[in-house]
């Protein structure tokens, strides 16, 4: 009934470093700096592999006409991967690895591979190196064929004396096979020298004396010409004919001259039926004024657009007709891998619109601040959300997704699931999380309700028609938030009523309703003073957001109708919505309140502050000092560890030297420890601790709060100081709902003696089943709760699980976690697990994520630990903080700012990619137009600095090498967000 597996990664790979494409398989491959390789084809077709070395993937090359690919890592190792069918589905496996070794004594850099050419014969790989030599290795064995090595000396003999004083050729920049004649390869050296090599006779047939530093080469389809692009922002066309063995360039052009330009690092020259070629090149912008742009320009006749990307371009490729018999390239789409997103441009439709990708969505186009999962969305709501979303996507191309290799054989998702992510810029994104492809359905912005410094109409696309270069912004990645107060902190969606509550950083709580039409209306505005006139405190944090007066125009979709602003405007730390009672509850570090969104009236507020808690009162600013200190400390720690690790590396030599170095290292470590031991204070929690009033959880329940004969609506709140408040609510019946006020009075206050933060509250009915969600029973989706038997209250603190009887709150059962295991509860949800064998059996358990990254399943109502799985590394603070569980035993957590890992705890509900990649029939003429261009743009843009000192970890845990500094930043962020 339980089984843990990590099924699929959603989102965009963190720190991509290489891109490859197989026109034969119609699959795309992306490599990352942490050594992961991911293959994508048709929606649902995806594969993932991980190099054991965790090194940066520099280049990816598919072997022509085969289900195989070769990757080059930054440690100069080559890896051969293949897709093989196994048990009905294809799997990606690493089959062979190889490191090119030079003769003894030669410098290792000489063997550094700079260019890779898989030959269309599928038998050999040509490897260009830094020394200028080209080695030939046999496939699939990776045996070096030494007699076929092309040495730079052999080449230089043909070079005329006067050419660049016959300098050494330097590194091999590009290796290309002749499109029509597999016996000829084109070799480009970084100094500008290019020659055509005849493999049969082992000699140079043509020599092209370039004068500019070479960046890349591209063959034209018929093999009569090729283009070279250069460091100075120029490109050159060269003719290849049998009569001229040392031709002069046909054309040399600096597209964005005459002022100095940046390098053009890659170029495509694509022929079309109408004769006008598509010239597509990366970079080449004027250095002074546009040198900071990440651009790819497309030129087709008089049309020219410089697509301006939001982040560095890693690499790109063009999808064109790969039929060997076709006369023209006829490019259909351009696929660009930028550092933070994937952009696909439709080249067939006028205006070159972007194509909406079905996967690889940039989850982090603005930093994710929270997420919320809703299972089993009713069809009606689903359709309404999709229709609202489709109105937002009109500017996208209608082109079907061009990368369509493989077939997904995964069963259709059993239900419709939504994942909602809240972002720093005040938006909420609705993702289709039912299947393998996390797909954006709809985007909601809360910005319009508020007055912010930046005018939303201030669009980036205001460039005039005659603007040169003709830049056009593409992509959605926009990490710069105008106002951090807009950030979304809590989301609650009622799937039956379509009510959505969203709460943010500056104490704002918005209640919204789904409307299929555009509308203009006034948002009702209320203020909740959580301090209740306590004297003598000053909020030193940010101000509350200013609201827009008068009616505001909202597009179709979720439209806010009520805004509650907490005072002081501290970040909202908990939120609950009861759509049946039409109530919304919210809590901050100061207290909590209840708002009636039907009558638009504040029902009550309760201050939970301890008077001595100055920190909470003054707001985040007063914490800056300690933050600075901790920052300084962590940087010092990083620096220290770097210094010592460098020392360690320095001591390479004979054994005694190593030993000495080690001893010294140990000593250093000891000294370090003595100087600044990391120590922890052992102190019991007391009421005076900071942030005890911080409201961690809110819960609505219809239960027996006061006596065992009458049940009533109630609101429960749990704080950081281990206090639970219970309020008895009096909600008028529906027919008098507008006439009588909702009343609330405090009925109980429970102080847990261990004072640990309360992270979850739950009421179990007479059958020990958790109470259903509001409206669940009304929609016949759940049995009505048992109100005959006695109810029980489950309070989950970070340290313990405790069951109490109701209405007399006496302790019945408990499970101590921290006292026994030293771990603390970070996330807890009730999940329904059903057996995969018998259909009718299912049970409710608690799914718990601890601060060590373990997942535990704890039975209800007896609180027995069922099973435990290691899931997230305990150092991965942001991963643990971002975890959400679904109601059916799955979950998501961020493995990087841009990727969700999906996992499953249930044997029954499993969403994972299952797909087949069949070998398309190989044409008898085994010369297929292969993908051109070596992906050395990636190498060009290699940035310095490794991925930190990764501790290698075995097992299924994937190593996501976050930079140390980034970790620190995460920590800071989580502190600022109030330790969520």
């Amino acid at each position, binding site marked *: 009934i339980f089984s843990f597996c990590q099924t699929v990664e959603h989102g965009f790979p963190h720190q991509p470093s290489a891109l490859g494409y197989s026109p034969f398989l119609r699959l795309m491959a992306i490599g990352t700096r942490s050594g992961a390789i991911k293959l994508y084809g048709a929606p649902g077709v995806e594969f993932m592999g991980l190099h054991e070395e965790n090194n940066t993937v520099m280049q990816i090359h598919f072997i022509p006409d085969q289900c195989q690919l070769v990757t080059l890592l930054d440690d100069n190792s080559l890896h051969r991967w293949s897709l093989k069918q196994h048990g009905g589905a294809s799997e990606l496996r690493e089959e062979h690895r190889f490191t090119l070794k030079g003769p003894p004594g030669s410098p290792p850099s000489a063997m550094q591979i700079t260019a890779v050419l898989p030959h269309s014969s599928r038998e050999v790989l040509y490897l260009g190196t830094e020394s200028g030599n080209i080695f030939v290795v046999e496939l699939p064995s990776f045996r070096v064929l030494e007699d076929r090595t092309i040495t730079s000396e052999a080449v230089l003999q043909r070079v005329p004396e006067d050419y660049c004083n016959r300098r050494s050729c330097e590194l091999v920049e590009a290796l290309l096979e002749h499109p029509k004649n597999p016996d000829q390869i084109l070799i480009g050296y970084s100094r500008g020298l290019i020659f055509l090599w005849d493999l049969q006779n082992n000699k140079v047939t043509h020599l092209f004396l370039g004068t500019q530093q070479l960046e890349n080469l591209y063959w034209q389809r018929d093999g009569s010409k090729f283009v070279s692009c250069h460091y100075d922002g120029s490109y050159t066309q060269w003719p290849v004919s049998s009569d001229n063995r040392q031709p002069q360039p046909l054309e040399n052009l600096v597209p964005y001259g005459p002022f100095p330009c940046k390098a053009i690092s890659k170029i495509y020259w694509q022929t079309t039926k109408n004769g006008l070629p598509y010239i597509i090149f990366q970079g080449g912008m004027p250095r002074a004024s546009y040198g900071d742009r990440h651009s790819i320009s497309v030129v087709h006749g008089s049309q020219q657009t410089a697509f301006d990307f939001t982040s560095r371009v890693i690499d790109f490729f063009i999808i064109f007709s790969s039929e060997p018999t076709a006369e023209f390239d006829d490019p259909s789409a351009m696929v660009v891998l930028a550092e933070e997103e994937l952009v696909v441009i439709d080249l067939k439709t006028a205006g070159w619109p972007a194509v909406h990708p079905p996967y690889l969505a940039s989850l982090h186009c603005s930093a994710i601040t929270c997420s919320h999962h809703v299972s089993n969305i009713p069809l009606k709501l689903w359709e309404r959300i999709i229709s609202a979303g489709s109105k937002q996507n009109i500017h996208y191309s209608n082109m079907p997704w061009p990368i369509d290799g493989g077939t997904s054989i995964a069963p259709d998702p059993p239900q419709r699931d939504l994942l909602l992510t809240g972002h720093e810029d005040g938006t909420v994104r609705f993702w289709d999380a039912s299947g393998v492809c996390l797909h954006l359905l709809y985007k909601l912005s809360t910005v319009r309700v508020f007055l912010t410094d930046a005018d939303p109409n201030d669009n980036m696309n205001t460039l005039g028609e005659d603007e040169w270069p003709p830049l056009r912004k593409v992509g959605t990645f926009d990490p710069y938030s105008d106002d951090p107060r807009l950030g979304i902190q809590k989301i609650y969606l009622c799937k039956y009523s379509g009510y959505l509550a969203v709460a943010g950083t500056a104490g704002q709580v918005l209640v919204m309703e789904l409307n299929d039409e555009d509308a203009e209306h006034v948002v009702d505005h209320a203020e909740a003073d959580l301090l209740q006139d306590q004297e003598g405190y000053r909020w030193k944090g940010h101000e509350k957001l200013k609201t827009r007066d008068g009616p505001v125009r909202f597009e179709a979709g979720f439209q806010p109708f009520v805004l509650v602003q907490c005072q002081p405007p501290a970040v909202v730390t908990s939120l609950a919505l009861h759509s049946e009672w039409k109530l919304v509850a919210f809590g901050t570090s100061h207290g909590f309140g209840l708002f009636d969104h039907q009558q638009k009236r504040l029902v009550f507020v309760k201050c939970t502050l301890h008077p001595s808690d100055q920190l909470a009162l003054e707001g985040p600013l007063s914490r800056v000092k300690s933050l600075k200190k901790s920052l300084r400390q962590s940087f010092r720690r990083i620096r220290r560890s770097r210094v010592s690790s460098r020392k360690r590396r320095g001591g390479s030599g004979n054994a005694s030297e190593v030993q000495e170095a080690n001893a010294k290292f140990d000593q250093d470590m000891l000294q370090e420890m003595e100087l600044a031991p990391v120590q922890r204070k052992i102190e019991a929690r*007391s009421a005076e601790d900071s942030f005890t009033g911080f409201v961690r959880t809110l819960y609505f329940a219809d239960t027996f709060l006061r006596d065992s004969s009458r049940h009533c609506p109630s609101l429960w709140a749990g704080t950081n100081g281990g206090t639970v408040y219970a309020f008895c609510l009096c909600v008028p019946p529906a027919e008098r709902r507008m006439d009588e006020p909702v009343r609330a009075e405090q009925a109980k206050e429970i102080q847990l*003696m261990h004072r640990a933060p309360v992270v979850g509250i739950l009421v179990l009915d007479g059958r020990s089943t958790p109470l259903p969600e509001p409206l669940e029973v009304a929609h016949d989706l759940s049995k009505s709760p048992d109100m005959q038997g006695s109810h029980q209250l489950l309070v989950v603190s970070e340290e313990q699980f405790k069951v109490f009887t109701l209405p007399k709150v006496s302790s019945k059962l408990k499970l101590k976690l921290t006292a026994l295991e*030293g771990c603390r509860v970070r996330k807890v949800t009730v999940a329904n697990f059903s057996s995969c064998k018998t259909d009718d059996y299912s049970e409710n358990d608690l799914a718990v994520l601890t601060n060590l990254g373990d997942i535990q399943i704890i039975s209800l109502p007896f609180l027995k630990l069922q099973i435990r799985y290691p899931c997230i590394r305990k150092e991965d603070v942001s991963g643990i903080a971002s975890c959400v569980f679904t109601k059916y035993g799955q979950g998501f957590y961020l493995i990087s700012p841009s990727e969700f890992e999906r996992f499953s705890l249930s044997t029954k509900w499993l969403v994972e990619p299952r797909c087949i990649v069949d070998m398309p029939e190989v044409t008898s003429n085994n010369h297929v137009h292969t993908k051109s261009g070596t992906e050395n743009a990636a190498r060009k843009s290699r940035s310095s600095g490794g991925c930190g000192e990764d501790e290698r970890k075995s097992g299924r845990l994937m190593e996501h090498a976050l930079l140390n500094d980034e970790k620190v930043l995460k920590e800071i962020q989580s502190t600022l967000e109030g330790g969520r």
Partner: protein
Amino acid sequence: QFGAEFRRFSLDRYKPGKFEDFYKLILHIHHIANLEVMIGYADVHGDLLPINNDDNFFKAVSSAHPLLRVFIQRQDEVDYSNFGTNTLSRKKKALVTLRNDNLRRRPHINISMPHDFRPVSSIIDVDILPETHRRVRLYRHGCEKPLGFYIRDGTSVRVTPHGLEKVPGIFISRMVPGGLAESTGLLAVNDEVLEVNGIEVAGKTLDQVTDMMIANSHNLIITVKPANQRNNIIRSSRMSGSSGQSTDSTTSHHSLPTSHVLQNFHPDEMESDEEADIVIEGGLEPQHIPKLHSLTSSSLPRINGSSLSHRLQRDLVLNNSSGRESNGNIHKLLSSLKTDPRHSLVIPRGGIEEDGTVITL
């Protein structure tokens, strides 16, 4: 049956005089000259402590602010276990009762009886641990004294099948002056922490161990390997009995092997020591303890951490009905008086009534 009376009288704070005189005065005031009584007082923390010699009498008087609450019980009704930490916290009395039976057979020495003092720490399980280890139990009472120590990462040397090996360990790195840990004298900087409440710390991170200790802070039992091995208990000695050291006492109690059994660590006992949660009923429903509620929820926590009032509430809610009569009464009386320890003691005008489960003032 309840048999409580109240008298208010004054003493010279700076010249309290001798215990003998005070004893006589008490007997005189209460007209009980012919009875053997035990005199106790409520200290600042609300615990019942005895007055039976000049020293603790002086201490009692000097700590009174401004009133000293003195409790007088017939000597034969006194349950010594109720002094000190046990005053309020026992739910399961089985063990305690057992011990009391044993104790009664022995004549009490008035001055150095262990039960006259509040245990703050003890060495336990001496018989089952290796001599190089020490298992220390820290009692946190209502007292607001911090546990007061820090731990750090370090390396320790272990004997393994492969010879000596360095392994990571957790060590005590710092003592807070005046903290509970320091005042016991049983823990010291650089002691290696081996277990926390019976769970080995090997393989756990500093943060995990920190969390475990804090989660067990109400009854923390740490097994350490002291850095200084010279003060270890010698097993062969008859003095192996565990003994409490006291903050108040300068006398050593090693000579009394009385409470050996009791002090041993029993999981069951640990449970019983656990403090229960407090439930405060609110709203307009009929109140069980209306006055207390208002006191607790408003004024008290603001003054002095809410621990005292919490204990009080807990006792009232849990209805410790199994307690022996006189002692139970004393507790309740004490509890009720304790609600406002900093302020002048207000003696309830209407006396005290007991309705069987809760008391109403």
